[in-house]
């Protein structure tokens, strides 16, 4: 039994538990996919797609859920968002007008002249995650701390240590960036 829904009966194909499941979790799935949908019609379709994925092939996906490992609501939210992402990616046209392309997609990466090899485990997974959240998702320290279940001070400390490692590795000083291979920071 998970969140008072009889999953065993549900995945056997009983109608009543499925109805109860739909009633109970439609709202959760709706809010999970809402942020990813473009319009109202999309939302309805995405919610239906999530339910369809849960029950198709004899409830194959639902059978992978293990109540001893995670709560059903948490699992469903992740399944719903992942499904919505897949559906929208499939629907997305292969081409888009130049103006519609996000700036990041148009950015030209600078040519990599440096051949500095990254040592294994230069940054720990936690340090990488913190920096990703801060610099790629533009989250603030408080939100990062909340999502990781730690103190904001811990996040600052993690960030600080990560930056020390990066600075040390790339041998950066206040005058600008320079690599170990090119200490003066000159090109060529």
């Amino acid at each position, binding site marked *: 039994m998970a969140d008072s829904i009889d999953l065993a009966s549900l995945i056997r*194909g009983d109608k009543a538990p499925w109805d109860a499941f739909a009633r109970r979790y439609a709202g959760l799935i709706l809010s999970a996919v809402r942020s990813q949908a473009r319009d109202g019609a999309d939302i309805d379709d995405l919610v239906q797609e999530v*339910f369809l994925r849960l029950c198709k092939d004899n409830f194959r996906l639902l059978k*992978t859920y293990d109540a001893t490992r995670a709560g059903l609501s948490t699992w469903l939210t992740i399944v719903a968002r992942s499904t919505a992402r897949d559906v929208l990616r499939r629907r997305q046209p292969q081409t888009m007008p130049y103006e519609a392309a996000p700036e990041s997609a148009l950015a030209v990466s600078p040519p990599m002249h440096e051949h500095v090899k990254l040592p294994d485990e230069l940054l720990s997974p936690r340090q990488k995650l913190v920096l990703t959240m801060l610099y790629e998702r533009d989250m603030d320290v408080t939100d990062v701390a909340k999502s990781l279940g730690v103190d904001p001070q811990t996040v600052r400390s993690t960030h600080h240590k990560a930056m020390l490692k990066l600075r040390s590795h790339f041998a950066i000083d206040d005058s600008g960036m320079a690599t170990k291979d090119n200490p003066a920071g000159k090109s060529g």
Partner: protein
Amino acid sequence: MSEPMGDDNRAEEAALWRRFRALERNSGFKARDVGDPLTLAAYTEGRLGTKAAEAVEAYLAAKPESIGDILAAQAAALAAHDAPEAMIARAADLVAPRTSPAFDPRVVPFRQTPAAQSVAWHTTLSRLAIAASLIATGLVGFALGSNTYGNILQSHVSASADTDPLDQPAGFFSSEDSSS
């Protein structure tokens, strides 16, 4: 070394991070794929051990779009959710009620409709009807023809007419030929 996360350093630190990322990409680094929903859900709820959690964090750092899933799952636990009745009904309709104890949701049997079974009968019956009507028409036609011929023959004999009304002239020059 300035204070981390200060405004002055943010741009420089972001550039440093981007540089690390670019180098990591160039080195062909790939995080282990631990992105199955159950593992991510367990991570969200803090149920993983240190090693497993590290693997998930490496995966999340490599796939930042999945971070949103974790954040959404955390927020979902705190909020109440409602859905329109139509949406609930549509989802509920995806599973049909069981019709018999032997119902297997994997198999959707095609119903043996009476119409499908009687198709062969209909075809045979219609062919038989056509054949019968042809035979009946032939028999009736033959009977009528025989009857008519009998009647004419009878009247021909009784009237002792010079010419048989059914006897066609022999030809255009037949009288001349015979006279000559």
